[in-house]
């Protein structure tokens, strides 16, 4: 029989039972748009958290993972902020994914401190639904600050980087993405209220991309 205070901690989502993952979510759930992934996340990403996503290079599904989520978030009259993306996010593709382009905000910075400052401001102010930042988390304290800033509001922070992050990270979700011949291989090294998930293949919309209306493969001339 657990004591009342333990019961309270369980209800607040501060601790979870190892044999009963996914307690009732304490924050708004943001559906990723992929049923198999949502199942592993216990219904979706919890708002007000930071996702650290490591991927080896563009083209392996790093945006496809987020696009359905961003499309839904872009229905809110709040910004979706992109800090220092590696290339230009291509408007026709974002529009085709259902994202309202008027919510997109691109920020380019010039020195090492500014991206962190921008992300922290954007996460704290509450006028962004999601904040995506491409920066290498060289210092664990920076990640902790961003996770803290995200938890103040219902804003989802996503930290995208190519270097492996240090083993301990304050981000609520830690993901590693690898390209694969079919779909992408995703490992959830850390997730809310559940054990880590070893590498698993997810389609992440690749099948639909390859079998879309104009996807017919014609013989090369």
């Amino acid at each position: 029989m657990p004591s009342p205070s333990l019961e309270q901690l369980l209800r607040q989502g501060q601790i979870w039972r190892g044999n009963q993952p996914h307690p009732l979510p304490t924050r708004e759930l943001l559906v990723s748009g992929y049923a198999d992934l949502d199942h592993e996340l216990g219904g979706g990403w919890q708002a007000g958290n930071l996702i650290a996503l490591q991927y080896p290079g563009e083209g392996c599904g790093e945006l496809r993972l987020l696009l359905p989520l961003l499309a839904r978030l872009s229905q809110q009259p709040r910004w979706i902020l992109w800090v220092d993306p590696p290339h230009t996010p291509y408007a026709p593709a974002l529009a085709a994914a259902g994202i309202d382009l008027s919510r997109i905000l691109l920020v380019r910075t010039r020195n090492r401190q500014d991206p962190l400052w921008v992300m922290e401001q954007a996460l704290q102010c509450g006028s962004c639904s999601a904040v995506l930042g491409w920066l290498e988390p060289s210092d664990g304290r920076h990640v902790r600050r961003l996770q803290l800033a995200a938890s103040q509001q219902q804003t989802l922070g996503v930290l995208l980087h190519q270097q492996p992050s240090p083993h301990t990270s304050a981000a609520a979700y830690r993901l590693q993405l690898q390209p694969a011949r079919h779909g992408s291989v995703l490992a959830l090294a850390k997730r809310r209220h559940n054990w880590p998930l070893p590498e698993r293949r997810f389609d992440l919309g690749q099948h639909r991309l390859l079998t879309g209306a104009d996807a017919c493969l014609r013989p090369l001339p």
Partner: protein
Amino acid sequence: MSLYLALQFPLLPLEVCYSSDTPGPAALCEPNPPRIQLCNQLARAQGVEPHQSVASALARCPELQLCTPCPSAADSQWRALGLWAGHFSARVALVPPCGLLLEIASMARYFGSLEQLYQRLMTALQPLQFSVNSATGPTPEGARLLAITDQGLCLDPRQLRQRLEALALHQLPLPQRQLQQLAGMGLRRVGQLLDLPRNELAQRFGPGLTGYLDRLCGHQPDPPTYLQPPARFRRHQILNHEVTQIQALLFPLRRLLAELEGYLRQTQLRAAELGLTLHHRDQHHRRLLLAHRCGEQSAGVWLELWRLRLERETLTQPVIELTLEATRLSTDQTGTADLFVSPRQEDPQLLISRLQTRLGHAAVQGLALTEDHRPEYACCQRPPKLNRPAQQPLAKRRPSWLLAQPPPLAEPPSKLAIELLSGPERISSGWWQQWVRRDYFLGRWPDGRLGWLFRDDHQRWYLHGWFG
């Protein structure tokens, strides 16, 4: 019924001369003959008094800071306080010397109650760091008189009469000769004077005295002349010491911005751009501009933006004067009200202003579609605008990353083990400007990544984007 709030700034001529935020004993001295004109509480505690000679004041308080009167600075500060008071009432009158009169009965509902309005005003005055005496009263003259003795809230004529009756006669702002005559008649309190029949008083002292008493008690209307806000806000401030650290400019700036906020609230405008001129010695000056996207009134928001803006600057020489002006005003009242998701969420435009202030204007961009078949022209960056959702055209399969400079492939895809999964899609357009004739393919790299390749007329292969 009207109600007036009188504010008296008794030490204003001295306080505009302070050279630090935490002054010690200080006094204003007339040069000829050298006498003390005004002194602050700390000096008074050590025995310094007005009309004392400077020598004896210094004998009592050796560390006394002596300031030379600067009537123009005190005057412009007084007028600026009149603008500042616009925050609380649209009807503000300047009452010499160094006093303000606000009509507040009509504003009580807006602030909840008179007590709340009074508390808010007193709290807002604190950061300006001026000594102030205040009182309210149903007549302008009554409020003024009670303010001299700092009597606080007094709401109705009966209360006014009670308080007036208790005042000593010499506190009335009457000619010295009349006060002496009244004292000679054996009168000590204002109550005794008010009890005397008016006709006899008028016969003996003329209509000036009875007219004043009637205005004091509200028997005769006495509408004040209210201040007309100027068409432009421009405020010049002489700093009392040279400022070498840029962060130190924020202290005088806070006061100027509070005055600006009062001005904007009274005129129902928003400032869209502010100019701050830093004056150095030898007529040199530097002008900094700061914009807010859809205009803002709040001094707090502007101060935060200025803090970010000034962080980017360094001072090469000390600043001796400041000028703050509103270079662009906007009348936009609705602003972005419909975009508020919840009242506690801040204005979405503020984030952009904040980012642009620190990173530069071009660092923050929005994204839009353009009607062009050429992939590199189908997407453009533009100033961000959070408008209502637009109808999105259905696009074909396009990569989510587009490379600005398509790198050429060293060899054809087949030799690089790139598997072509779909294509070709012929894109041919732009003969009028930059002719593009390309065949696009979706290719899978050996490691599984998906890219967007094209082959040009010369059978050369390029990578144009990633399906991220």
